[in-house]
């Protein structure tokens, strides 16, 4: 393959948000006719990079050269006019307008009177879409199409605007296997036409099927760029997660002390065959009292969905959850909570804290019925609980009456833990319990998880931090594409084994249909 001209060159791109350095001197070179994979875990900086390239964000530092000229896009529209088109995970077209109108939005053909030339529009729309394997009545509103067909319209629209670079952000997340094949067909045609494609996905199978080059981002830095064919899957996964292959570590860096003695007691939680369309395909696991079970897997493997299905926040279409032998009503959060299941959600801000209420009210929120008589809140009882947990978890707030929204991430997380511990749970589901919190709070939370397990709680631990997952868990269940692909026990609970399981395990292509917005 002869190296062709660079279409897009990015040098030293940096972008910070308050408290976070999202991009730190990132370089990227994109050649004509190249399909370039852009990968990385949550928070690695992929979306920020895309948003800078498409004019959504302005970079703090660095240069972008597009077709030989330095550019600085102020708006997505400018980028699009210049020839950089983006297809997002979720179709961002207008559902009530016709398919043809959507396809030509912003560049509608007009007749001599300056009015829309519908005849031409419909003719051209049909021709264009036929090339993408989509045969529909282009006069129908877009929303009457399936998600896959809508995605194709978005793609056709992106390409039709004389794009030189097409950025695809998880384009297959809502596609059926057949539609994925059509998409690949289109990408091959783009490649042949000399158009450069940036392809963002977490599905290794797809990357290896379609991409020529890969760039891996981690914590806002570029950590690897090179031909994808040179990397085997295990190496790719290890680069992505930031672990050296065969790295031997005798002692841990986390605050976990290690094994708990769950031994042979009966499981406190049994989840069997959890099934959520497009997300989970028959996930089963159990947790014994005093045991920390880790849930491993890449972003989008169904970890969060598993926790949510257990806690009733996602309705499982099949399968069952039993707590201490008693089956739970599916899809009911209150029932799960009454049975003793507590979920610490991944997205603390949008699903955890109630920012405008005080520390005190946030801690007491779930336990309110128990702390009330005849519907009146017993302030004395609330004070007692709040006092206990503020001390035990060392929550730092100016007073119990401070708004939770004003606290640091670590303290917010502790408030949420306190909320659940006040319920005396049997099972704690912790989804990324230490994400985005400072080192000190992180160590405290890890220590607390250990203590809780020693006190006999069953814990399910989800973490993208491999160290935390490996050292915190007694056992790790590994998920991939919404199914269990392996379980690590005893001496096999190591990062290497975990990465091997992730790289090797395959529930078969097509079983995927994964939604990746939740980890």
């Amino acid at each position, binding site marked *: 393959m002869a190296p062709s001209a660079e279409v897009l060159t990015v040098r030293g791109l940096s972008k910070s948000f*308050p*408290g976070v350095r999202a991009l730190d001197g990132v370089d990227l070179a994109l050649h004509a006719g190249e399909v370039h994979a852009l990968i990385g875990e949550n928070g690695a900086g992929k979306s920020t990079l895309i948003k800078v390239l498409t004019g959504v964000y302005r970079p703090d530092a660095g240069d972008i050269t597009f077709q030989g000229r330095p550019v600085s896009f102020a708006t997505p529209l400018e980028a699009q006019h210049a020839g950089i088109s983006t297809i997002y995970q979720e179709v961002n077209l207008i559902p009530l307008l016709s398919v043809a109108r959507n396809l030509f939005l912003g560049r509608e053909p007009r007749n001599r009177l300056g009015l829309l030339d519908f005849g031409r529009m419909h003719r051209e729309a049909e021709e264009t879409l036929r090339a993408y394997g989509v045969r529909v009545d282009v006069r129908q509103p877009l929303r009457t199409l399936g998600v896959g067909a809508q995605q194709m319209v978005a793609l056709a629209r992106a390409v039709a605007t004389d794009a030189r670079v097409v950025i695809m952000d998880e384009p297959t997340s809502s596609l059926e296997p057949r539609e994925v094949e059509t998409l690949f067909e289109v990408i091959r045609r783009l490649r042949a036409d000399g158009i450069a494609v940036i392809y963002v996905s977490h599905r290794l199978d797809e990357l290896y099927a379609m991409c020529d080059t890969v760039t891996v981002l981690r914590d806002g830095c570029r950590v690897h760029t090179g031909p994808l064919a040179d990397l085997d899957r295990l190496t790719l996964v290890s680069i992505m997660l930031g672990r050296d292959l065969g790295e031997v570590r005798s002692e841990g860096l986390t605050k976990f002390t290690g094994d708990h003695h769950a031994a042979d007691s009966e499981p406190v939680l049994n989840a069997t065959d959890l099934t959520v369309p497009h997300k989970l395909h028959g996930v089963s696991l159990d947790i014994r009292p005093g045991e920390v079970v880790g849930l491993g897997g890449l972003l989008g493997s169904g970890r969060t969905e598993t926790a949510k299905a257990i*806690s009733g*926040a996602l309705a499982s279409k099949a399968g069952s959850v039993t707590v201490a032998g008693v089956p739970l009503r599916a899809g009911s*959060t*209150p029932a*799960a*909570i*009454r049975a003793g299941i507590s*979920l610490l*959600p991944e997205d603390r801000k*949008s*699903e*955890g*804290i*109630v*920012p*405008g*209420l005080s520390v005190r*009210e946030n801690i*007491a*929120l*779930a336990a*309110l*019925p128990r702390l*009330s008589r005849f*519907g*009146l*809140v017993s302030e004395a009882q609330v004070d007692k609980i709040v006092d206990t947990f503020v001390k035990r978890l060392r929550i730092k707030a100016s007073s119990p009456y401070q708004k939770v*929204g004003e606290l640091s991430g670590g303290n917010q997380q502790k408030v949420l833990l306190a*909320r659940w511990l006040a319920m005396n749970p049997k099972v704690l589901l912790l989804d990324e319990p230490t994400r985005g919190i400072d080192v000190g709070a992180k160590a405290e939370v890890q220590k607390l998880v250990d203590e809780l397990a020693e006190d006999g709680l069953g814990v399910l631990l989800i973490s993208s931090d491999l160290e935390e997952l490996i050292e915190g868990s007694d056992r790790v269940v590994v998920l991939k594409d919404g199914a269990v692909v392996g379980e690590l026990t005893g001496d096999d609970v190591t990062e290497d084994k975990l990465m091997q399981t992730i790289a090797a395990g395959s529930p078969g292509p097509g079983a995927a249909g994964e939604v990746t917005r939740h980890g």
Partner: protein
Amino acid sequence: MAEAAIRPAALDRARVLQWMQTYGVYAGVAVLLVVNIAVTPHFLSAENFRTQAVQVAPVIIVALGMALAIGTEGIDLSVGAVMALAASVTALYLGYGLVPALLTVAVFAAVVGLANGALVAWVGVQPIVATLALMVGGRGIALVLLPQLKDLHNPALASLGSGDVLGIPYLIVIAAALALLVAFVVRRTTFGRQLLAIGDNRAAAKLAGLPVRRVLMLVYVACALLAAVAGVLATARLQASDPTSLGNLMELSAITAVVVGGTPLSGGRVNIAGTVAGAVLIQLLTATLIKHDLPPSWTQIAQAIVIVLAVYAARGRGKR
């Protein structure tokens, strides 16, 4: 972090806005009182205060329920229609005595509240659309029940509208008692805390196992019941049932009182004292302009200015 660098001017502006949102309504009431005492003849008389208070009482009662709905990040446009419905039902059932009539009114109001609540909580319709249906339909039903104005001659009802205890009109006593009750419910009950949590972060409230749907249903039932009370009291004061015009535009007056009183439309906070003061502010503003012979259109313009100021102050708190 750039945001940590404090720019004095910006800080001062934020502080002023914050102050305005919390205390602006009380300052407004105080200013209007002082100005009126200074320039309006006969303003400082017991008779005038009585008139003003009796006029504002129904607005306060409706606004209390509206504050609850807004606290859940909702709204209830059907309150004016519920007042009309209460007037019609009162007229129809007064023959059986005041108490049976009032109980029937309560049943009608509860049904409206349940319908609103069910649309919002179970069907998931946006509150503004859900309650719009009964805003239109409710008055229609009221007019079907009683097509035109009807004079009511019932001594018990008349005394409810114009009687007093220790010189204080019943209307004022009832409005004050209800304000205290609602404030207590918001502050001290499980229901109140749950309501605020749902308004502030519904996803979190749901994951915390709160009975989100039940709380929303109760909020809309409470809102309808309070509007019905206001409707009955206004009818009692008129000694006539007037489903055509009673409660017209009341939903807007109530929303204005709530917003001017410092309760944000984004939910999660309910300020009952502010809501009462907001209703009083609008009433004083209207009375001032009328007493100085300004045309009613000026009242509307003045109200608009107050609303814009209140929304501007609320905006200053910014998004979290």
